[in-house]
C-alpha cells in the first residue's frame, strides 16, 4: 500500500519529465531534451529487465541471449522506419533504402514485404522474437537443458545472430544497420513533441508490462513457475508439463523484450548488429541482479540505476567507469544477493 504509493509517485515523476521539457529553456525547471531521450531509453531497458526477470527471477531460466530478442524487435521497427524514408534517401530511390541501392539491389527482398505498414512491423516486433524463442526454447527445454547450459546456448544464439546480421549480404544493412530515420506514424522523429510521444508510449508500456507481470506472478501460473525454478523435477512428477510452462514464459519474455526493442529504436535513431553482442545481454542480466532478481521492482530499479550510473560515469570518469561498474557488480553479487531492493527492504523493516 505504502509501496504502491511510492511506485505511483515514481511513475508520476517520470511522466512529468517531458512536461518540464516543454517549459522555455531559461525556466529554472526546464529539463533538457537530453534527459528526456536518455530516460526514454532507460525505460526501454527497464522493460527488457522485466522480461529477463520474468524468465530468470520467476522461472529460473537464465537467458544470456535476451539482447537478441530486443534487437530483433528493434530491427522489425527499424525496417518500418527505413521503408518510411521512401524517396527521401540520399539516392532518391522510390523503393529501396540507401544501403540497398549502393549494394546493387534491384528490388526489395521478399522478407522486407509488408514492413511499410506499421501494424505489420509492430506485430513482427513481437512475433519474430517470439518464434525464435519458441524454436530455441523448444529444442532446449525438451531435452532438459537447464541452468548454465541454457545460458551458454542462448549466448551462442545471440552470438550467431550477431555474426549473421553483420553480413551485408543478409539485407539488413550490415554493420551500419539502419539510421537516418525520418518519421513514424506521420510524426517527424527529430522534434521534441515526437520524443515526448515516444517517451509516454514507453512509459505506458512499462507500466502495463509491469502490471501484467505482477498479475501473472500472482496467478497459479506464477506459482507453478516458482515451483519449476526451485524443483523442476518435482513439478514434473506433479503432472505439470514443465517444457510447456517454460516455453510459455520464455516466449512471453522474448516478446516483451522485442516490444522493448521496438520502442527503443525510434528513440535512439539507430539499430545495428552490435545490439546482438553477448556482452549486451549479460549486461542486461546484471541490471536485474543488481536491482534484485525475483522482484519486478528490483528489475526496474536495477535497469534505471545501472544505466544512470553508466551515463554519469562515462562522462565524469571516462577512463575509470568500467572499473567502478565492475567493482559494483562484484560487491553486489558478493554482499547483496538480493540486490538493491533487498538492501532497501532490510533498511525499511
Amino acid at each position, binding site marked *: 500500500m505504502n509501496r504502491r504509493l511510492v511506485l505511483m509517485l515514481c511513475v508520476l515523476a517520470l511522466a512529468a519529465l517531458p512536461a518540464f521539457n516543454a517549459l522555455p529553456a531559461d525556466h529554472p525547471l526546464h529539463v533538457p531534451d537530453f534527459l528526456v531521450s536518455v530516460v526514454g531509453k532507460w525505460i526501454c531497458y527497464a522493460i527488457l529487465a522485466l522480461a529477463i526477470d520474468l524468465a530468470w527471477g520467476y522461472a529460473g531460466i537464465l537467458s544470456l541471449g535476451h539482447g537478441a530478442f530486443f534487437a530483433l524487435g528493434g530491427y522489425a521497427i527499424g525496417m518500418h522506419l527505413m521503408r518510411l524514408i521512401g524517396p527521401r534517401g540520399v539516392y532518391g530511390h522510390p523503393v529501396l533504402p540507401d544501403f540497398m541501392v549502393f549494394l546493387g539491389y534491384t528490388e526489395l527482398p521478399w522478407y522486407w514485404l509488408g514492413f511499410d505498414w506499421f501494424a505489420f512491423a509492430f506485430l513482427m516486433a513481437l512475433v519474430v522474437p517470439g518464434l525464435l524463442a519458441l524454436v530455441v526454447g523448444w529444442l532446449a527445454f525438451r531435452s532438459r537443458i537447464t541452468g548454465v547450459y541454457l545460458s551458454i546456448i542462448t*549466448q551462442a*544464439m545471440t552470438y*550467431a545472430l550477431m555474426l549473421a546480421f553483420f553480413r551485408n549480404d543478409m539485407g539488413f544493412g550490415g554493420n551500419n544497420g539502419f539510421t537516418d530515420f525520418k518519421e513514424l506514424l506521420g510524426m517527424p522523429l527529430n522534434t521534441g513533441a515526437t520524443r515526448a510521444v515516444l517517451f509516454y508510449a514507453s512509459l505506458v508500456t512499462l507500466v502495463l508490462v509491469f502490471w501484467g507481470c505482477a498479475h501473472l506472478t500472482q496467478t497459479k501460473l506464477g506459482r507453478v513457475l516458482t515451483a519449476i525454478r526451485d524443483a523442476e523435477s518435482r513439478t514434473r512428477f506433479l503432472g505439470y508439463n514443465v517444457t510447456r510452462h517454460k516455453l510459455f514464459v520464455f516466449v512471453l519474455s522474448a516478446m516483451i523484450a522485442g516490444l522493448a526493442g521496438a520502442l527503443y529504436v525510434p528513440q535512439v535513431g539507430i539499430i545495428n548488429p552490435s545490439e546482438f553482442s553477448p556482452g549486451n545481454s*549479460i549486461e542486461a542480466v546484471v541490471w536485474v541482479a543488481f536491482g534484485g532478481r525475483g522482484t519486478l521492482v528490483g528489475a526496474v530499479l536495477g535497469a534505471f540505476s545501472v544505466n544512470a550510473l553508466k551515463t554519469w560515469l562515462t562522462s565524469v570518469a571516462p577512463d575509470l567507469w*568500467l*572499473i567502478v561498474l565492475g567493482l559494483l557488480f*562484484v560487491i553486489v*553479487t558478493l554482499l547483496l544477493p538480493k540486490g538493491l531492493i533487498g538492501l532497501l527492504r532490510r533498511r525499511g523493516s
Partner: protein
Amino acid sequence: MPWLIPRGLAAALALLLFLSAPARAQEYEALLPGLAGGFAQQAETVERLGLLGDPRAIPLLQAMADARLLRLADGSLAPQQGATPPEGATLIRINNRVRGALRGALGRLQLVSPDPAERSRAAEGILRNRSAADIPLIEAALAREAQPPIRARLELALGGARLASEDVAVRREGIAALGASASPEARGQLLAARAANAELLPDIEAAIAAIDRRLQLRRAAETVFQGLSLGSVLLLAALGLAITFGVMGVINMAHGEFVMLGAYTTVVVQELCRGIPELAPWSLPLAVPAAFLVTAAIGAAMERGLIRHLYGRPLETLLLTFGVGMILQQVVRLAFGAQNREVISPDWMMGTLLLPGGVAVTQNRLWIILFALAVLLACFAAIRLTRFGLEMRAVVQNRRIAATMGIRTGRVDAMTFAFGSGLAGLAGVALSQIDNVSPNLGTGYIIDSFMVVVFGGVGSLMGTLIGAFSLGLLNKVLEPYAGVVLAKVAVLVGIMLFIQRRPKGLFALKGRAADQ
C-alpha cells in the same frame, strides 16, 4: 661481418664461370651510380648487374635489399657498418620493383655460393626470373647441386627458363618439367604461356591437369592442417575452462581476460629480455612458465577472495566474474595503453615448412598445435599422476568425505582454479603469436571456448580435445563453401542441435552420478 672468405670463394667461382673479358670490369664501374637513381633506373641497373655477373656486386646488392646501402658524402656506395650511418651519408631507398629485380640478380650471382641457405635463396630468386638467358647458368648449377630441395627448385626454375626459350623443342621440355611439379607457380606460368604457345596447347593443358591433380590432394591436406590449427587454438583457450567450468562448475566469464593477461605477460617478459642479448631469443619459452604463474596467482587470489563465497550458485559466479573481467580489461588498458602491443616471433617460428608432398604449413601454427598437445598431456599427467590431481578428483567426487580424510578442500579449490587460470595464461602465450595483443584479446575466444567444453562434454579432457579439433576441422571444411561467417554460424547452430540430442556433450558421464 663474416663476409669475406666464403663470399670471396664464391666470387672466384663466379668469376671463372662468367667473366670472360676485362672490359666487363669497366662496365661494372659505369653501372654503379645507377643504383642511386630513381626506382626505374635502379631496377634496370640491378638487372644489368645481375646479367653482367661481376661478383663485386653481391655485397652491394645484398645491402641494398636489406635497406643498408649508403651513398656516402663523396658519392660512392657502401654497405652500412654499425648502427648509425656516418656523417653526410644517405640511405638508398628502394621499392618493390627494385626489390624484385634484386632478388633475381642475386639469384643469378649467388647460384654457385658454397652456403646452401644462400643457394636456396638464389634458386628461389632465379625461379622468378623466367628468362631464357638463365638456362646455361641453371644447368651448370644443377650439375653440381646435391641437395634435393634446392635441386627441385632449380629444376622448376629451369623449366620456367626453358618455357621462355625461342626454340619450340626446348619449350616443350620446359612444359614437361613444370608439369612434373606440384607447384602453383608452375601452374601459373603454364597458364600465362597458353596465349603465346598455340602449337603447344595440348602439352600445356596436360601439364596443368597433372599439376591440378597433385594440388587437389595437397589442398585437402592443407585444409586439414588449417582445421587442426584452429582446433589447437580452441583447445588451448578451452582447456582452462574445462578445468574451472568442467571440474569445479565455476563459470568464469573472466576466462578470456586471463588469456589476455597471459599474452601481456609475454609482452612484459619480452621487454625484460630485450636488455639481455643472451636471453632475447628465448623470451617466448621463458614467457610460458611466467604466464602460467602470473595468471595462476591471480586466479588463486580471485578464488580465495571472491568465488569461494559463491559456491553452489553458478549463475551468481557468472555475474561476478563478468564484473572482474571488466575490471581486468580496463586495468590493462590503463596500464599498457589501448593500442596493440608488439610481440616478436622468434625466427624458428616464422615462415613456412614444406612437408613431404609439398604441403606447406606455417611454422607458428605448427608450433601452436604441438604446444596445445603438450599442454593437454601435461594436464592429463597433473590430474592422473600427481598428489594434487588425486586430491582434486577426490574433492570433486565427494567434498565431505575428502574433507574427513584430511584433504584441505579450500586449498584444493584454490589450486584447481589457479591451475585452470594458469592454463588460460598459456593460451595467451600462444595467441600472442597469431592474434593482437590488446585488452580485447580475450573477448573473441570466450564463447568459442564455452562451446568446445559443452560440445565435448563437461568434465572430460578427452571430450575437450575431440570437441576442439572436430569444431576446428568442421569450420575449415565449411569455410570455402559457406564463407567465414556462415561457416561459423552453421557450426554454432550445429552445436545447438547436437546439444539437444546429447545434452551432456560428446563424452558424457552417465548414470545416477550425472543427475546431480
